[in-house]
């Protein structure tokens, strides 16, 4: 079969890339080889547009055991314990087939984590949908939520935290990002680097079918009106098989049989075998007739590019094959030696002893194309919004409107579809700033949170990038955890557009700056470009997943008020920054202006001081102040506890709207017992932290002096209606 330009383009490669392939091979590739190049050189697998920017991120620290480049990142949480975690996107498949797209997103990220020797202990997700009124939104929401639940509930790993947002920018391109967190022993971590010649390459797990062929290429292209036709490229998940695969792998990992292990994720058998060989500077030879197939007459091309789920590739130590097979037999899973490592530095593909394809490994991995795409900086927006010039609105009306919108409504309609308790170590479920998961059989725990702020990133990416890192950091601090490291999922539009590439570059600059300052390194992540349809790109939506450590777990304080008559303080200074706030967007549909500025020094200082107060047991409840400002955070503390509050009129800012709805950063709300107040003041002063006493808690009513009085029951009702009515 002659490879025409048309075939090349259908594989998502351009002609320049095609001539590069011919140069490497010193001949024309056949269809199988072209398919393999296409799978490895697409954006999703090669990171060709993002790599030069990703390199700038801080990835080291004394808490880091393994940074980016492996299946997932690994951090040290003391003793012999390590936490392994990563976030990944499954946006395109989820838009086409929401249930399976979301489910396999969860399945894929779980494999990344248990491949490295960790037992997964928590799942998180960040899901973004179009406007509720868009005709597709409701079925996408239903499908994605049941897909996430369907997979996590069945495999028996708690889904403990997440965020769900609705915005017009995602009307034609939703985001589904899934994060998995696992626990391993420090001396039992498994990597993908192959070692040694003539070692058995073993295929384990499900059989290979025709599903998902070229899924990674799909994730590297924009959508158009024909996207629906791509349904056959969406993989189908089977959490039951994954559960068996996970248990079998973890059982095999107990002894020393495994040299290297890699899950078959995007680009399936191709990327897993290339990855292992490339890291070990070896060749790999596969006998494709041995690959367990689900369907008849599958060609080498289909086998190499299938993205059937729940499969792994393992390189075993000599003589361990029999014992290993016994384990997989016990779990009724396929276990087949399909090849061996070689010294040729080639990927050699045979079918019934005939060579069907041969490609140098480095051409597929380290020498894949890298682009320094053109990008431009975003100009700061000068517009300031003067609230006095806008039509007046009562604080109460604005608060009701915000609390009843889908982005701020109580999300228990979603979270109750996820098993949050299985494994019995979930000390703090979703709905709080961060979830808390105890390390099994130990006193310590980790806190986890995922966050994004697309509006801030859209209006000024550099600040937006910093803000999401800080927001995530604050969420961990609020529950009493010391933030350790992050994973990121970078969801952007078309990188060939210089403004989009600029959003990417600048968001990353912001992330870098904040991570460096906070000693909060990036240990894993994923880039998803081409989020958009017919040239309309989504707002830049980097998502940060953070992990923090609680050394000694006691009953979590949470963000719900605890008692009547305790004192409420704000940590951090309130300036009343309204541009890019939920208030302006929700009430006046104003999207202009700059996001709130980030002062990294204050972030660090305020956060570390709060952590000190929590560790000294001086805080009854705490909550970070984020979208919606002070009043929304206060309302959330009230709604969750059925305890009200009585807030003074602001002393300094004359305009109450700025004061209550401004989204200034580095702020927290804390509830303190009267008897502890002087101790708390003393510590705050000693650490030069700005604070403000704003009122007290009280029973039944949520009240601001001379402004509003509303019963907590009513607030609860307002906050709990949207999802049940949608």
């Amino acid at each position, binding site marked *: 079969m002659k490879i025409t330009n048309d075939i090349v383009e259908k594989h998502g490669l351009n002609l320049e890339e095609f001539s590069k392939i011919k140069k490497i091979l010193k001949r024309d590739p056949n269809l199988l080889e072209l398919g393999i190049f296409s799978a490895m050189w697409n954006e999703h697998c090669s990171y060709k547009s993002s790599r030069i920017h990703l390199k700038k991120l801080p990835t080291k620290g004394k808490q880091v055991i393994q940074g980016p480049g492996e299946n997932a990142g690994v951090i040290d949480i003391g003793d012999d314990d390590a936490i392994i975690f990563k976030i990944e996107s499954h946006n395109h498949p989820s838009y086409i087939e929401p249930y399976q797209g979301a489910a396999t997103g969860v399945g894929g990220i779980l494999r990344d984590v248990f491949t490295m020797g960790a037992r997964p202990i928590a799942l998180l997700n960040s899901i973004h949908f179009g406007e509720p009124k868009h005709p597709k939104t409701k079925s996408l929401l239903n499908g994605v939520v049941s897909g996430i639940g369907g997979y996590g*509930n069945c495999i028996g790993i708690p889904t403990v935290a997440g965020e769900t947002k609705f915005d017009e920018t995602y009307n034609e391109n939703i985001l589904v990002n899934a994060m998995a967190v696992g626990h391993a022993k420090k001396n039992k971590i498994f990597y993908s680097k192959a070692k040694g010649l003539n070692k058995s390459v073993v295929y384990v797990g499900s059989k290979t079918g025709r599903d998902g062929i070229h899924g990674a290429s799909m994730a590297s292209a924009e959508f158009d009106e024909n996207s629906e036709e791509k349904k056959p490229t969406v993989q189908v998940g089977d959490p039951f098989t994954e559960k*068996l695969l996970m248990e079998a792998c973890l059982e095999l990992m107990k002894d020393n049989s495994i040299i290297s292990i890699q899950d078959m994720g995007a680009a399936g058998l191709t990327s897993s075998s290339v990855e292992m060989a490339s890291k070990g500077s070896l060749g790999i030879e596969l006998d494709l007739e041995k690959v367990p197939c689900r369907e008849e007459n599958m060609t080498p091309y289909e086998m190499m590019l299938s993205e059937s789920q729940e499969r792994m590739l393992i390189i075993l130590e000599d003589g361990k094959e029999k014992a290993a097979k016994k384990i997989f037999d016990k779990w009724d899973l396929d276990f087949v030696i399909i090849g061996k490592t070689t010294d040729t530095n080639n990927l050699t593909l045979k079918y019934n002893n005939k060579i069907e394809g041969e490609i140098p490994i480095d051409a597929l991995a380290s020498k894949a194309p890298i682009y320094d795409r053109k990008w431009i900086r975003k100009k700061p927006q000068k517009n300031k919004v003067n609230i006095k010039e806008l039509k007046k609105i009562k604080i109460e009306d604005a608060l009701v409107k915000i609390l009843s919108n889908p982005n701020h409504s109580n999300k228990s309609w979603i979270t109750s*579809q996820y098993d949050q*308790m*299985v494994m*019995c170590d979930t*000390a703090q479920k979703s709905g709080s700033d961060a979830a808390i998961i105890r390390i099994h059989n130990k006193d310590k725990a980790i806190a986890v949170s995922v966050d994004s702020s697309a509006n801030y990133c859209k209006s000024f990416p550099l600040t937006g990038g910093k803000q999401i890192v800080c927001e995530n950091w604050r969420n961990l601090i609020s529950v009493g955890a010391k933030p350790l490291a992050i994973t990121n999922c970078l969801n952007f539009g078309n990188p060939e557009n210089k403004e989009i590439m600029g959003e990417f570059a600048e968001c990353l600059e912001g992330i870098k700056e904040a991570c460096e300052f906070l000693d909060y390194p990036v240990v894993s992540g994923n880039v998803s470009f081409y989020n958009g349809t017919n040239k309309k790109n989504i707002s830049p939506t980097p998502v940060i997943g953070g992990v923090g450590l609680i050394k000694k777990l006691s*009953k979590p304080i949470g963000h719900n008020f605890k008692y009547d008559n305790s004192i409420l303080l704000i940590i951090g200074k309130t300036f009343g920054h309204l541009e890019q706030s939920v208030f302006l967007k929700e009430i006046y549909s104003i999207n202009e202006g700059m996001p709130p500025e980030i002062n990294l020094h204050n972030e660090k200082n305020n956060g570390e001081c709060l952590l000190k107060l929590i560790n000294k047991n001086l805080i009854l409840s705490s909550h970070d102040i984020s979208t919606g400002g002070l009043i929304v955070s206060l309302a959330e503390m009230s709604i969750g506890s059925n305890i009200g509050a009585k807030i003074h009129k602001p002393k300094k800012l004359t305009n109450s709207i700025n004061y209550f709805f401004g989204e200034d950063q580095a702020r927290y709300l804390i509830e303190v017992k009267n008897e502890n107040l002087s101790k708390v003041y003393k510590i705050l002063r000693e650490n030069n932290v700005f604070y403000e006493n704003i009122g007290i808690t009280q029973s039944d009513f949520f009240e601001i002096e001379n402004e509003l009085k509303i019963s907590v029951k009513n607030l609860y009702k307002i906050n709990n209606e949207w999802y049940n009515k949608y």
Partner: protein
Amino acid sequence: MKSSVIVFPGSNCDRDIAVALEKMQFKNKMVWHKETSLPKSDLIVIPGGFSYGDYLRSGAIAGKSLIIDEVIKAANSGCLVLGICNGFQILTETGLLKGTLLRNKNLKFINKNVNIKVINNDTKFSNKFKKDEILKINIAHNEGNYFTDKNHLEELNKENLVAFKYCDEKGNINEEANPNGSLENIAGIFSQRKNILGMMPHPERMVDEIISNRDGINLFSSLLN
């Protein structure tokens, strides 16, 4: 007291129940579904999860597995058997308990803490509870909507075979307090001889104050009593 936890492929609350049993000083053993004999046990537990991926029908395939014959034999000779969640579904599939568990009324998976009321506290499983005591216990299921025929329902009520019913915080048994559509708010039932208990709520999730509460403790201490 000796306990055995049966592990099927797809069971996922097996570790949780084992932790709870050991915490309560049971001498516990895990028993793989391919085994053909049971260790000597005073209590057999069939844990929650998705045995065989819930394929065919929840509990249906597990109900026909090798080890189940042994469980049935032991149960018929009076051994105590506890089935939680998927374990309850499996027990109804084996016929050890009558009735069935349909899909939740709202057709969605439900995970939340609910209130249940102790209906019969005069059994091996419930003697440490007070009658009508209200417990807050976690549920997590797709198919928890208990249904049975009229004759059996009459029998359940007449013979005092209902173990727990869903209720509100004050103990009222009404439709609002029924999370899944179960007949008469039934959350758990006993067999005729009261040596078998099947329940949808997860008592093993409620034995630790830091994680949840201790409302499940008395089920285990009743068994030790």
